[in-house]
């Protein structure tokens, strides 16, 4: 019934638009508005609000908040800082969305006409757009080539000249000294982007995209434009490219794909890494596991700081070592971030449960396994187990030495062993990154823990909290089940089948060729030849 009503409406609108177009000979902007309005109200108003002020019903559950279109502030433009975007700029953002935020891309869901009509409709929310002034895109130079010298120059400019490190930090992880105090034009706290995760850049992660953002700035955010610095002659356009190439080099060449399995590399002869910054870790491939806000049980958390962790693992047949690394600008609790914390809590306070902890809260990490290796496909509920199937957990937090082993049968039921700990931990925080290494014997005396098996996929899940982002308890980041697979030594028997296959094929080859030649000789065509001499 409802469907029929809306469809009727759309048909009526179209009919009116089409007849108007016929009458005037062309579609005027106003007719596009009707389609723009219908599409907007259906797909965008839930976040951006019916009146475009960014206060739709979904708005309170996200940071950055949906854009208020009445301000006409657009981050991703090809125009100079302070200028309005071109129509193509707005269309490009609607098509691609803004990675790293809740703003989705619409290219696959909406037709060309709908998306173009949306561009015109968005502009009607603000009086800054006018028909006489058409914004002009900047001229962008062609990309320069990147090499080691360019990257070194880029790094120097990043740290010393262009002052990027003041916000983004020396390693680019968003831990610069100004970062706790950054707010956007709407007075909302805004993190300086983590430059090691270019797949989450709002405007695209390639050097060309970065170069453009540096020239145009991200209007409405503290991220400045470098156009003035270039005009003033402090840096050249070529140097700007060097910065862009350097920033690009902070992220992996390709965005990490989804890996289900973390490989626990077998150390047969070499000793296992002995500390969190042991160089042996550099040789071990890491798997990136994405994390999401815990929005499954009450009270929920829609604004986790940690959006993914890198996990590496190794074992030597006796002991397993797991290192988890993730970006977090500070070691909580840190008084410098107290303001940030209370702002985030005030903005993201969900409507359920007790208010989050206002007292000092540490950063935390939990690595979770089933208590017993599952038989068949059954396993505990990924969110801290359930009554029937408990989980076994490793828990580390930044304000306590050591790590705890424990068990849980559902979130909030964690119980930790008081003595007889078999788990050791080594953690370090540097340049906006936590690295935490756990080691434990594969097999222990203890009944209440998991005995790690080699050569089988062991379910594993991870949970992380940034205390100074207002996170504790159920308010944090979660993952679903992944697997830890401790490599076996390649058994010698593995080579038997290939060797057999090789011998059989070779023998068959001899036979066939030999017979063919014999027949040929009998028919007298060739004199004599052995198959393989």
């Amino acid at each position, binding site marked *: 019934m409802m469907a029929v009503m809306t469809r009727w409406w759309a048909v009526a609108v179209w009919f009116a638009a089409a007849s108007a177009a016929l009458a005037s000979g062309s579609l005027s902007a106003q007719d596009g508005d009707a389609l723009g309005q219908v599409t907007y109200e259906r797909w965008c108003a839930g976040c951006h609000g019916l009146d475009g002020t960014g206060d739709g019903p979904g708005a309170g559950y996200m940071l950055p908040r949906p854009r208020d279109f009445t301000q006409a502030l657009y981050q991703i433009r090809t125009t100079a800082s302070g200028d309005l975007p071109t129509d193509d700029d707005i269309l490009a953002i609607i098509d691609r969305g803004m990675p790293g935020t809740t703003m989705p891309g619409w290219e696959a869901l909406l037709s060309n006409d709908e998306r173009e009509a949306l561009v015109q409709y968005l502009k009607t929310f603000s009086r800054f757009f006018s028909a006489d002034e058409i914004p002009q895109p900047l001229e962008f130079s062609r990309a320069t080539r990147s090499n080691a010298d360019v990257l070194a120059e880029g790094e120097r400019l990043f740290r010393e000249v262009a002052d990027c490190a003041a916000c983004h930090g020396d390693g680019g992880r968003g831990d610069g000294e100004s970062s706790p105090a950054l707010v956007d034009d709407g007075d909302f706290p805004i993190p300086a982007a983590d430059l090691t995760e270019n797949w989450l850049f709002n405007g695209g992660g390639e050097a060309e995209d970065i170069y453009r953002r540096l020239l145009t700035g991200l209007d409405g955010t503290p991220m400045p434009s470098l156009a003035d610095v270039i005009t003033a002659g402090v840096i050249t356009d070529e140097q700007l490219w060097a910065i862009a190439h350097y920033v690009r080099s902070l992220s992996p060449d390709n965005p990490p794909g989804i890996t289900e*399995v973390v490989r626990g590399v077998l150390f047969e002869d070499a000793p296992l890494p002995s500390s969190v910054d042991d160089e042996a870790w550099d040789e071990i491939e890491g798997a990136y596991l*994405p994390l999401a806000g815990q929005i499954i049980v009450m009270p929920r958390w*829609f604004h986790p700081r940690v959006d993914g962790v890198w996990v590496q693992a190794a074992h030597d047949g006796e002991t397993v070592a797991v290192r988890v690394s993730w970006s977090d600008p500070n070691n909580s609790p840190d008084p410098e971030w107290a303001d940030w914390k209370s702002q985030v809590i005030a903005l993201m306070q969900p409507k359920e449960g007790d208010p989050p902890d206002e007292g000092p809260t540490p950063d935390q990490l939990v690595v979770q396994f089933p208590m017993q290796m599952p038989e068949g496909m059954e396993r505990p*509920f990924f969110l801290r187990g359930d009554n029937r199937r408990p989980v076994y957990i490793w828990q580390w937090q930044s304000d306590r030495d050591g790590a705890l082993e424990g068990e849980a049968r559902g979130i909030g039921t964690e119980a930790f062993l008081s003595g007889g700990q078999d788990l050791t931990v080594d953690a370090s925080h540097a340049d906006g990154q936590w690295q935490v290494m756990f080691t434990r014997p594969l097999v222990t005396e203890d009944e209440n823990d998991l005995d790690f098996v080699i050569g089988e996929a062991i379910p594993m899940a991870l949970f992380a909290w940034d205390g100074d982002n207002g996170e504790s308890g159920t308010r944090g980041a979660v993952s679903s089940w992944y697997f830890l697979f401790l490599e076996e030594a390649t058994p010698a028997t593995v080579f038997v089948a290939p060797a057999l296959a090789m011998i059989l*094929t070779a023998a068959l080859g001899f036979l066939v060729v030999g017979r063919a030649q014999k027949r040929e000789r009998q028919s007298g065509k060739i004199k004599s*030849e052995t*198959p393989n001499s």
Partner: protein
Amino acid sequence: MGKYLKHPLGQAGVVLFLAYLLFDFGIAYIPPLFGIASAPIPNSVLLQYLITVSVGILIWVSDNEARWAEFKEPMHRVMVDPDLKTARNSLMVLIPILVALMTFSQVRPTVAAPTTLRSIHPAPPGRIDFQGTTLELGSLQNPLRSRGSMEEHYEEGKRVYYENCIACHGDGLDGQGHYAHAFSPVPVSFQDIGTIAQLTESYVFWRVAKGGPGLPNEGAPWNSAMPAWEDFLTQDEIWSVIIFLYEQAGHEPRTFEEEGGEGEVE
């Protein structure tokens, strides 16, 4: 070049190669050009297809005596011609090595996740307990469809959806919310005709109310991130979000008369 293409062995090779291109890449990339969703086929299926094509080719070449003889001739020559001794000897070394490598890649220990077979739409229970009342799923109807204004139910459902569901199912209802990639199984796309379009509203009510934890074992409840919304929402809120889902995705719910078996394996 032309000479080789006129030869049946050359033609067979070309056909096989084109078939390979079509199966390995064409199936994945051509339909999207016309707006139809597609995905690459698994290697085992690819192998089957190629074997079928090879059999077809063999039937075609052996159908005609002369062609068959011509087809075999180069292979025969390699085996017997004294001038081709080097080619023959290298092939007799290379082929067994290739076979050995292929076997090795089959038997080598691999690091892989166990496959989970999961029934996407397992049979629902006969009745459920919802916040203290018992609901008979077999005869449960959406009460909002015969009460009040649909416009208002839709708006209410929209509010519920944007406050609770977009992070996973996406505001496009395409299962592409900004948290979706962190969960496995991935949140359902309601745009897909394999989901709510083939379910009754009472079934959807059960799935929303009881979430992942309410699934029977064949649905692998331990993996599902779908929350049990009975902990957050009232009965009317759930019914209104269901109205919103169908309306926004442009599907009609299934009715009890046309309902068959709702069971399917992923």
